[in-house]
């Protein structure tokens, strides 16, 4: 009896380890994460509008139906990326996600304080490689550091009412992300 109890306790302890290991390893092995889901629709380093979510068909779960959304799936292997998003009348936000879906940075039109949200996205290494003087002239532009080489930028424009959605979608069409030249 005691022997079985010991085996049981051993099993539970091992189970705890299995639990922690699976939780920590799952993000690396996930096949249905946002990046993978968007890989089919979004080519690398360009802004692609996402279809409005409907009950039968939504690329990502829990998308807000009041927003027009576009995504830029980025890969910084060939150098930093330049993002330009003209703001819409109601509300515009740009959110940055690492490869695993972690939201590491987000900015909205008010925080940007201009008619156009303009920023440079680069890896920590690429930022370190920036020449000193260039950093000075670039003082007025926003630099965002990506923790991973690949990731997602979500550009979202608010349509306060259904009639304003086409306008939000039009504003979204002029957003661009492209490798810096």
């Amino acid at each position: 009896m005691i022997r079985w109890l010991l085996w049981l306790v051993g099993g539970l302890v091992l189970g705890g380890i299995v639990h922690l290991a699976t939780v920590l390893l799952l993000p690396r092995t996930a096949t249905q994460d946002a990046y993978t889901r968007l890989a089919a629709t979004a080519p690398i380093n360009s802004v692609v509008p996402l279809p409005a979510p409907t009950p039968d068909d939504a690329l990502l779960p829990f998308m807000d139906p009041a927003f027009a959304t576009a995504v830029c799936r980025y890969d910084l292997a060939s150098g930093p990326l330049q993002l330009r998003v003209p703001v819409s009348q109601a509300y515009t936000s740009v959110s940055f996600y690492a490869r695993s879906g972690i939201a590491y940075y987000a900015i909205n039109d008010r925080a940007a304080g201009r008619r156009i949200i303009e920023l440079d996205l680069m890896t920590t290494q690429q930022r370190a490689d920036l020449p000193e003087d260039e950093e000075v002239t670039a003082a007025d532009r926003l630099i965002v550091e990506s923790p991973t080489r690949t990731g997602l930028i979500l550009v979202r424009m608010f349509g306060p009412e259904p009639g304003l959605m086409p306008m939000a979608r039009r504003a979204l069409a002029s957003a661009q992300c492209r490798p810096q030249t």
Partner: protein
Amino acid sequence: MRLLIGLLFSFLVAAIFGLGLTQFALTRGTAFGAITIGAWTAWPKTGTADIDPYARAAIARSGELPIGSGDGVAFFAASDDAGKPLDGRCAVTLSGTTPAARFWTVALYDLDGRLVPNAADRYGFTSQEVSRHADGTFSIVLAPRARPGNWLPTGGIDRYVVVLRLYDTPVGVATRTARDAPMPSITAGACA
């Protein structure tokens, strides 16, 4: 022989217990960094780089992209103020005020995060669309059949979640109580 059986038994317990616990934690959501106000719960830390390992695993599994903390915060409610799960065959009233925010939206989803299907093709309300009472409060009725005033169709599904998202808001990681963030009440009414 006894050793072998013992080992197998241990491994079996480990697999069932460990994987079961993981499954449970990822589908139920965890309490780390959660703000609970009435029936509403938000996880503002999930929208930052400080996200906890459980939430990380949960978003990797579901494919959701959480709202970034510089953008806004999402409050989820799966039950009413009395703790009864939200039922699409019953009328449910959201009423009161929302915390300070430039805009907010309300939308209904099934438990997997798909919008609730309905004949009216109406999935949510925004702060601009909702009609308010004279004192600035509002009420929205979630019901299977059309109602006067602010009505969100539930399509008669049995379980759903209401998500209230605040955009450009001071509500976030530092928020603790209902005094900082007055959320609307959720009251269940008659069932069809």
